[in-house]
């Protein structure tokens, strides 16, 4: 085979991923005068951010003026079962409103309140109506607004410099296979055009990873093909750490029927707008599943739960609006106990509370999705739903203020690929504002780094090494099939590292993942380099295997149940385990995990909570200390 073409580019910053976080980082870097390459695996504007439905959480207080950043901070910490990095949760809660208002200045059109402000809706785990939204297509509004903001900046550059791509260029349908390091710090990134298979070198002193999630590691997921943990794996290989990879969010409501749509998301807004969950006996079962830590905030009877929709000040919330991990486990238990629906889910019904007209207006894409894909009219009948792998709380360990990856100079990470912000469980609505808050901070971090460090040339050795890796699967014949190995991996994660875990199964999973990884070194690819999905999957699979290994190895060590990690053999939450983060690192051969103490709450944040609430999560020594100074 003749050696492929190599395109070479030089930028100040390379942003990998064109979802909300990547685009927000790029805007920040451009506005500071830096040149930015935005690289994405799909077409521009198709990133998974588009799938977010319910809204973006920000304590603007437009609907209930009791809301403020402190209430939002408390809700986020509770949702994450206090495993969150406090500083990330604090920055997020404080800066989210500014990021939403900024979108409006860039052309976003959110739904409005009667006074003409941005409307906010209720969501699981949020004390007040807090989610800015556009019907149930908020993610589309966010991604389009950011995409159009990039275009606006390019138009400005065209006018001023005669070249729209002088400072920002979007490299669509390009996969990064390697983050390059020279002299111990970031020097660029290497990859291939998906269309032609030709190779691409970016020389850049700073790289921002904003690649999103890992859902495709699992069999039933709400994620698209892009969610293959690329950034998680790229960071590990570049010498960065992943934090708390055992925590995966199974969204409680994915479609369960027909088979081909199994896993597709049913937005939490259905419950926010009054949808109730029932089992095959017709019981509204969530009342049975309110954990002790939430008993004072959630109604334990139907009458009170129903009154809450009319009077939120004098009633407790319906238990359908518990954080996602609680609802997912409850649904799982009902189905396991034989009270599931024909297709292995439970019923979610909004038709009894809202008129057909209101449902179509507030949940238009849900109506559309069920009507066209399942033949179900949600204005008349209930939906069948069950848990689906939705979001990874774990991710690259970063410095909260700058989003700099710990341990690698010049590397930054923001959005779903970064860890820490959401602790053991993310609240709905916190993701979209996470993208914006930390996307901006990653951009600022990269700007400061580039300004103080300058260029770092890529060595020829780094280039030839990266090129050899891309060529390898073509050089083999008759080896393993990437599609089959991917399916095998999904079976292992689904059956052994899923929503409920035990030690023996996790140990088995670790062995099986290692075996698949060994065989994946022998993948061969048929056909040419030109837009060849078999070739693309070979690289995506390598990333998913590292993610799965980190998750299984972290999960087997954590001997408790918390948020998105449930152990059948250790069902309770344990205050001592709350003080521990699991750090994954990679030595080129295998992932190893070490326990690292969680940063303790400083006094001013500690004091935002009722001491009796903290007692439910913290050890008596921590309580006695009363936060750090």
């Amino acid at each position, binding site marked *: 085979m003749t050696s492929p073409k190599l395109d070479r580019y030089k930028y100040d910053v390379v942003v990998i991923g064109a979802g909300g976080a990547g685009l927000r980082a790029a805007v920040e870097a451009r506005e500071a005068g830096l040149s930015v390459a935005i690289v994405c695996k799909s077409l521009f504007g198709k990133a998974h951010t588009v799938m977010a439905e319910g809204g973006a959480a920000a304590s603007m207080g437009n609907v209930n003026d009791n809301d403020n950043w402190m209430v939002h901070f408390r809700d986020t910490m509770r949702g994450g079962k206090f495993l969150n990095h406090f500083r990330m949760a604090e920055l997020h809660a404080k800066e989210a409103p500014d990021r939403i208002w900024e979108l409006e200045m860039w052309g976003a059109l959110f739904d409005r309140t009667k006074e*003409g402000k941005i409307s906010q809706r209720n969501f699981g785990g949020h004390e007040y109506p807090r989610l800015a939204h556009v019907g149930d297509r908020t993610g589309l509004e966010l991604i389009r607004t950011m995409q159009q903001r990039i275009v606006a900046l390019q138009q400005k550059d065209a006018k001023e410099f005669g070249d729209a791509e002088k400072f920002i260029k979007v490299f669509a349908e390009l996969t990064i296979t390697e983050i390059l390091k020279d002299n111990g710090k970031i020097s660029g990134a290497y990859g291939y055009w998906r269309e032609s298979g030709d190779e691409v070198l970016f020389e850049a002193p700073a790289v921002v990873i904003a690649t999103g999630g890992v859902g495709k590691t699992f069999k039933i997921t709400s994620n698209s093909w892009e969610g293959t943990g690329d950034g998680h794996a790229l960071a590990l290989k570049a010498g960065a750490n992943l934090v708390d990879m055992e925590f995966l969010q199974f969204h409680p409501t994915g479609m369960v029927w027909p088979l081909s749509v199994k896993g597709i998301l049913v937005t939490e807004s259905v419950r926010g707008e009054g949808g109730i969950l029932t089992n095959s006996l017709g019981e509204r079962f969530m009342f049975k599943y309110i954990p002790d830590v939430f008993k004072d905030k959630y109604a334990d009877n139907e009458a009170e739960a129903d009154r809450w929709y009319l009077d939120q000040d004098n009633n407790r919330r319906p238990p359908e609006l518990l954080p996602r991990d609680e609802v997912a486990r409850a649904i799982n238990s009902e189905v396991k106990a034989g009270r599931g629906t024909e297709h292995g889910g439970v019923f979610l019904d909004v038709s009894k509370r809202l008129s057909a007209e209101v449902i179509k207006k507030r949940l238009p894409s849900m109506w559309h999705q069920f009507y066209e894909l399942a033949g179900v009219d949600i204005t008349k009948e209930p939906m069948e739903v069950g848990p689906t792998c939705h979001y990874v709380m774990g991710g690259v360990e970063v410095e909260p203020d700058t989003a700099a990856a710990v341990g690698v100079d010049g590397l930054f990470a923001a959005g779903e690929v970064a860890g820490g912000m959401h602790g053991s469980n993310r609240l709905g609505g916190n993701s979209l504002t996470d993208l914006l808050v930390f996307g901006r901070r990653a951009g600022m971090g990269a700007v400061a780094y580039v300004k103080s460090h300058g260029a770092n040339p890529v060595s020829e050795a780094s280039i030839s090494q990266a090129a050899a890796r891309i060529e390898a699967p073509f050089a083999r014949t008759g080896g393993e099939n990437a599609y089959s190995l991917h399916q095998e991996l999904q079976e292992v994660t689904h059956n052994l590292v899923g929503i409920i875990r035990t030690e023996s199964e996790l140990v088995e999973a670790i062995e099986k993942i290692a075996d698949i990884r060994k065989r994946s070194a022998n993948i061969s690819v*048929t056909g040419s380099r030109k837009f060849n999905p078999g070739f693309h999957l070979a690289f995506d699979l390598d990333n998913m295997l590292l993610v799965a290994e980190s998750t299984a190895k972290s999960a087997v060590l954590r001997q408790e149940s918390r948020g998105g990690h449930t152990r059948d053999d250790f069902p309770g939450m344990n205050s001592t385990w709350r003080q521990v983060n699991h750090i994954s690192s990679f030595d080129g051969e295998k992932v190893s995990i070490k326990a690292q103490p969680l940063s303790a709450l400083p006094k001013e944040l500690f004091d935002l909570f009722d001491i009796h609430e903290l007692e439910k999560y913290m050890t008596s020594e921590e309580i006695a200390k009363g936060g750090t100074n």
Partner: protein
Amino acid sequence: MARTLKLRIWRGDDTTGALQDVTVDANPGEVVLDIIHRVQATQMGDLAVRWNCKAGKCGSCSMEINGRPRLACMTQVSAYGEDETITITPLRAFPVIKDLVTDVSFNYKKAMEIPSVEMPADMKPGEPRMQQVDVERSQEFRKCIECFLCQDTCHVIRDHEENKKSFAGPRFFIRIAELDMHPLDILRNRKKQAQEEHGLGMCNITKCCTEVCPEHIRITDNAIIPMKERVVDTKYDPIRWLGSKILKREDIVQN
């Protein structure tokens, strides 16, 4: 109960490509994209297809199924007869890169030609107040998932490469309409630009774009026709024309 499905799939590019016959199993409830994935995993490992969300939200898996522009993820296999052969081809209005993947860069170039939203200079973040009824008109157009099916079906460019230079297409007419109706946008003359720079006049309202829109956006009725009417008002109404010349304030009559 699985059924056996007969497909004809386009393989290759514009010049050397051809339809290829394939037989594959289909399960109840499956959509055309599921079938394409099965073909990919079992028979044609290098079959090129774009897709992302598989839920009709991202607009990536646009193609032509039995000649009709559609999203493969929203097209039920059961909509076709037991003995029917389903023919799957790439979008015809754009150059084929490989198999079902086309070069849609035309659309990104057009997006760059439309001036972005412009806010009043003195407006601060958090200040805007708008009524729901006023944002809804633009919101309808912002539902667009950029699947480009409307562009593909539009006969002005479908078989007329020569028109692409002067015609932006339905997707960008709704973008212009969205900005034109945006309660905060201060840029004037968007309708005039649509007419003079983006080829609005070439549209003869056959509504093909509206018919194929998976988001059911009323492209023709709510965006194209209202803009055409306004343009006609200004251009051909003698009193308005005179007014615009005397006052030299075109935007008075533009709105």
